[in-house]
């Protein structure tokens, strides 16, 4: 077989000589699709009808493993990408724009629709279901028997912000996350800037260090984001004693889990005692499954996107560390950056409407 014929059928497993075009025969998309399929089917089996079945867990892990195998093939092929082959669209309306860039924008459009449906759900329930606090203040819940003592719960909307915005310390994880995402958006454009600097205007070793440090910083901030989210959802934290006076006398900041703010909270009452009626001694009981679900699904979907970004950033930081980015292939950072800025963009809406209002 001649050399040219060999290049017409390059390895489906990478690495690849991009001077002869893109590796159209890559196994990566197929393997990743199979992996995602196994993962989702088995995950659905593990949590079927609200019952947890541990026998599905090994196959869930197999699904994740298969996805990672697909990712490794993709990365092996991308590691060899030096920017030599960057196809551009030939027809209107995207003439002369890189096809990958257009594809990324179309992907982001579909993502916009996903998040719009989540926001729409939130707006619909937030405006349509009466607020729990309003019902409590009206006071007729006692006569209607929606009390802890009677065990009957009233269906109402309890926004997460009712718990989160009660003190600066409750808001802190979400607020720090907001700043973390904005800073990470900045660090990634800085990585792109250094990658795009023409050869000769910057020493190559300085370029390499700048890019991997900025990408590494973005990775760190993304990890910080998810860590704080886990603290906010499941762990909580404790303040030093001298800060208690700024937190209504308490030193412990409970997680949403500790507060009982859960997607299956059909018998919920506030743990701080604020739904207590001093006259009758009764405490209001609420079914807040709808409000908790909209909160966790929306913020969880966003968090999932951050987690995907961390996986991508792990690879890109490694590639940058090996000196893999040059002005010729800097657009790869730009395309990932579009995704990352989109994640930031969604948080710009999630934070005020789910955490503050």
């Amino acid at each position, binding site marked *: 077989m001649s050399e040219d014929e060999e290049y017409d059928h390059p390895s489906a497993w990478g690495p690849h000589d991009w001077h002869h075009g893109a590796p159209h025969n890559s196994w990566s998309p197929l393997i990743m699709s199979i992996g995602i399929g196994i993962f989702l089917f088995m995950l659905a089996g593990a949590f079927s009808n609200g019952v947890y079945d541990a026998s599905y867990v090994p196959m869930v892990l197999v699904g994740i493993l298969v996805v990672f195998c697909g990712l490794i093939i993709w990365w092996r092929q991308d590691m060899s990408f030096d920017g030599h082959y960057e196809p551009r669209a030939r027809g209107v*309306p*995207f003439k*002369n724009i890189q096809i990958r860039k257009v594809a990324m924008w179309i992907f982001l459009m579909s993502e*916009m629709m996903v998040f719009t449906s989540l*926001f729409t759900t*939130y707006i*619909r329930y937030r405006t*349509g279901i009466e607020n729990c606090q309003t019902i409590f203040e009206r006071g007729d819940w006692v006569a209607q028997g929606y009390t802890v003592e009677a065990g009957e719960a009233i269906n109402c909307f309890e926004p997460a912000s009712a718990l989160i915005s009660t003190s600066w310390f409750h808001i802190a994880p979400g607020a720090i996350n907001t700043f973390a995402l904005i800073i990470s*958006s900045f660090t990634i454009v800085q990585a792109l800037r250094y990658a795009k600097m023409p050869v000769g205007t910057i020493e190559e070793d300085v370029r390499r260090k700048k890019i991997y440090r900025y990408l590494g910083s973005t990775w760190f901030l993304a990890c910080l984001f998810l860590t704080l989210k886990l603290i906010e959802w499941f762990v909580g934290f404790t303040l030093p004693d001298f800060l208690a006076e700024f937190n209504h006398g308490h030193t412990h900041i409970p997680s949403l889990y500790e507060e009982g703010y859960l997607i299956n909270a059909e018998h919920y009452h506030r743990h701080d005692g604020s739904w207590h009626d001093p006259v009758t001694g009764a405490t209001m009981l609420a079914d807040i499954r709808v409000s908790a679900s909209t909160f966790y699904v929306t913020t969880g979907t966003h968090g999932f996107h951050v987690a995907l970004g961390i996986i991508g950033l792990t690879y890109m930081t490694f590639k940058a560390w090996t000196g893999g980015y040059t002005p010729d292939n800097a657009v790869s950072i730009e395309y990932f*950056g579009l995704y990352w800025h989109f994640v930031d963009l969604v948080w710009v809406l999630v934070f005020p409407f789910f955490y503050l209002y």
Partner: protein
Amino acid sequence: MGHTIFGKDVYWMNFAGLMILTIIEVAAVGLDLPNDTTLMILVGIGIPKFIMIAAIFMHLWGDEDSGVLTLTALFPAFFILVMILFVGLTHPEAATGLPEWCRPGTYN
């Protein structure tokens, strides 16, 4: 993108602007204002933040292909408006509460 704002690097200025707006956002909630006022402030700050990220960080302003890509990004805007106005702002019981003449024949 090699633009400047007030003679300063556009990315730095955008970053600083976003940080300041976020501080105002968090502070507004701490002021314990009426709900409607808080909502107006949050929307009033959220919109410029959204535009700043899209225009400058996502290069929808100032690049050769910014125009067509902005139109691409705005393509779902119609569907988003329909969803928010006609689904999001209707009552959760809107479907079950529809008058009889408005329901399909098979709807119970």
